[in-house]
């Protein structure tokens, strides 16, 4: 197995380090808390001559993604980073990047959307651009953030879809952890070089990218995008397996943690999955059959894999760190219910909206959710929505 070095890195440092090793052609970025460091540290690498990247400092996130689109259409390997309001300002261009099938990789540090203004973690920014056609990969910790960034380049270029890799604002982005990183040469070999088939700077070919597409063509192109996102699932799985074989950390569309025989299961994304794992270890010691299913990829949603993972559960709690404001539940819960319905599984599903605006999610609160599930598993409570950790 390839040699790795154990280092102490925050999530932002880990993402910047991955970007240094990937050495993209162009990075266009605008700073925003808590993602600033990702591109700030990377700008330092550019200034030091540690990378060959053309760094484009722009006047807004809308311009950042616009410059990324231009550079990617020209044929470059392109990356950027942002968070929250920055991602929201990019939203228009995110759809364009996906529609044009440009394999841009974006590091997003999850942060609440205004209003009220807040700089801390929740998943409302990433959920806001859920339907943009970007592949969305969530990280549980700095190690995953680093590993996901490396894989994202391969996934993007193979599927010709843009990929957003997220961490949780401050919790991961500013939390120092011991992580294992690969040698520069190894990363270079893993990501390979980018060889697009069509690009604007290809001198031997005349090409139009992004022409007006009216009633007679728009639908066909959107149908292609739908197919591409659907077909990205095996690509994500294959690259995750290859990463595991080479470096000892395998990845799939979702992670199952003690869920195979579990009666009560939490579904959570991002850093809260780590808290749930700690709770499960305690509960298992007391003979409680608790488990966790963590979707790593939210787009495309691993519907069939999720239904299979939840098949044996008696009661399920979905942890939504964002609210869809549908009046019923968060975005993740809707996906879980749809996955169960399509598989003909009628389950008790409790939804927990939690952690908005960086509100801490404590181990005791996750344990309380498992306690609720233990009651629900006996059929004593039905499905419903709960606001966990809010003051009444």
């Amino acid at each position, binding site marked *: 197995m390839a040699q790795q070095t154990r280092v102490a890195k925050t999530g932002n440092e880990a993402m910047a380090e991955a970007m240094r090793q990937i050495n993209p052609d162009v990075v266009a970025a605008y700073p925003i808390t808590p993602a600033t460091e990702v591109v700030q540290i990377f700008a330092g690498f550019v200034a030091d001559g540690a990378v060959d990247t053309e760094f484009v400092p722009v006047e807004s996130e809308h311009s950042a993604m616009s410059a990324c689109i231009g550079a990617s259409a020209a044929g470059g390997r392109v990356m950027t980073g942002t968070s929250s309001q920055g991602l929201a300002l990019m939203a228009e261009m995110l759809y364009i990047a996906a529609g044009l099938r*440009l394999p841009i990789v974006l590091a997003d540090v999850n942060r609440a959307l205004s209003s009220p203004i807040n700089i801390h973690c929740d998943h409302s920014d990433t959920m806001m651009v859920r339907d943009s056609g970007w592949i969305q990969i969530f990280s549980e910790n700095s190690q995953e953030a680093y590993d996901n960034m490396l894989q994202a380049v391969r996934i993007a270029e193979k599927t*010709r879809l843009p990929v957003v890799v997220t961490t949780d604002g401050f919790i991961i982005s500013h939390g120092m952890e011991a992580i294992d990183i690969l040698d520069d040469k190894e990363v270079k070999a893993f990501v390979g070089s980018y060889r697009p088939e069509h690009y604007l700077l290809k001198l031997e070919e005349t090409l139009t990218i992004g*022409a007006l597409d009216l009633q007679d063509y728009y639908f*066909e192109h959107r*149908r*292609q995008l739908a197919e591409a996102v659907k077909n990205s699932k095996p690509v994500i799985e294959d690259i995750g397996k290859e990463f595991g074989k080479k470096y000892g950390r395998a990845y799939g569309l979702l992670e199952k943690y003690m869920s195979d025989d579990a009666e009560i299961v939490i579904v959570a994304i991002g850093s809260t999955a780590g808290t749930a794992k700690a709770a499960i270890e305690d509960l298992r010691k007391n003979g409680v059959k608790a488990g966790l299913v963590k979707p790593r990829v939210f787009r495309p949603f691993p519907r069939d894999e999720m239904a299979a993972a939840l098949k044996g559960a008696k009661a399920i709690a979905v942890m939504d760190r964002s609210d869809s404001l549908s009046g019923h539940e968060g975005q993740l819960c809707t996906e879980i219910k749809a996955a169960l319905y399509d598989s003909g599984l009628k389950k008790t599903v409790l939804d927990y909206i939690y952690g908005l605006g960086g509100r801490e999610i404590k181990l005791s609160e996750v344990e309380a959710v498992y306690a609720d599930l233990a009651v629900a598993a006996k059929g004593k409570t039905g499905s419903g929505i709960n606001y966990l950790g809010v003051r009444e």
Partner: protein
Amino acid sequence: MAAEKKTKPGWKELPEGDLIIGGGTAREFKTGDWRSLRPVHIKEKCINCLTCWVYCPDSAVIVKDGKVAGFNYDYCKGCGICEHECPVKGKAIKMVSEKEALKEGGK
């Protein structure tokens, strides 16, 4: 539902990502079918000053040997600028209803 007769490529046949490969493809995009009015050239009145040819935003005025020879209806959008700019008293270009023109067997 009966499938519509396919005259354009399906989603599996198109290059992916809103790409148009190759140059000069605007020629294939015939914008003349947007027209609700069409210009008709009145040869007897025309002084061949070519003002219409200069002003036409779609370069749809056909000129042969220095004389106006009609309009390219594949690209003429029927904006009427040619008629408006025609300096001839009583106008040597007249905008007529596209629907009426088609009824009368116009192309």
